[in-house]
């Protein structure tokens, strides 16, 4: 229904604008309805501002910037309608150290209410988790798990 879409859009949009500056320092962003007069059919777009930059089109953004915008959208949707688990497979690969730190912090906070499973090669992200599963192929071709508890979880 029209009301339900608009209500959901507004909630996702609020999350989006609140999360983005916490993922990219100095950044700000909104989600917009392309045609506000037609909520039943209108497309949805994203506007982003990055410090000092005059954005011409989203495709000109860097690999890391695009990844962060996508992640912000994913987390904004997830906060509105969570799943039993949110799985992120090497989403932090394009991130620089500062953005890695921001990302780790956001995921840590959200993990107190939602289940996150994060696959990573990144030391900063590894330090943020509570339980770390290490996968090895000590026997070639066969995956085995070693679990390492990093922190005491109540």
């Amino acid at each position, binding site marked *: 229904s029209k009301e339900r879409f608009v209500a959901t859009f507004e909630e996702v949009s609020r999350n989006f604008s609140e999360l983005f500056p916490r993922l990219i320092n100095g950044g700000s962003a909104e989600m917009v309805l392309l045609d506000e007069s037609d909520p039943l059919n209108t497309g949805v777009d994203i506007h982003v501002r990055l410090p000092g930059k005059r954005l011409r089109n989203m*495709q000109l953004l860097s690999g890391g910037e695009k990844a962060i915008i996508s992640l912000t959208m994913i987390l904004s949707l997830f906060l509105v*309608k969570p799943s039993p688990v949110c799985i992120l497979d090497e989403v932090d690969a394009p991130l620089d150290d500062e953005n890695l730190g921001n990302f780790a912090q956001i995921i840590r906070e959200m993990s107190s209410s939602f289940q996150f*499973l994060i696959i990573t090669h990144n030391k900063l992200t590894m330090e943020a988790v509570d339980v770390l599963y290490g996968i090895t192929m000590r026997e070639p071709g066969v995956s085995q798990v070693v679990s390492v508890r990093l922190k005491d979880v109540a």
Partner: protein
Amino acid sequence: MRLKRLEIQGFKSFPEKTVFKFQEDGLTGVVGPNGCGKSNIVDAVRWTLGEQSAKLLRGQAMEDVIFNGSDRRKAAGMAEVTLTFENDGSLENQWRDYGEISVSRRLFRTGESDYLINGVECRLKDVRELIADAGGSSRGYSIVEQGRVSLMVNSKPEEKRALIEEAA
């Protein structure tokens, strides 16, 4: 409903029964060298949630998800994955009084395939409804596969709208 436990056996590079427990209130990380099986875990979850396309699990046929053998071990005859959820009371269906709800999928090399809820055989349809009630999906925004994180930025306005509708 949150995911509590994941059990993998005979699926891709996991011939031995492997159990992952997920803490409430905790962030779980998975690490390891290239090719050790981390993304295979993600495939196992999506497969159990009802993914029907082998291609989207990096395979050519669904049989590709069954452990194919190694230098020392022969191929497995079956793959089985079980997802166990903590029932937070939000379900409205026949499972609402269970403390835990487990969903399993099995595939035999013969092609025979089963779905089970709490150990009872059921149809794919039942699994899909249960998962949908719980807010899950084999292809929703909540599972971001390796290399695909930037897709959302590139998506068209209609596709972004569809994501909002999915969350509605």
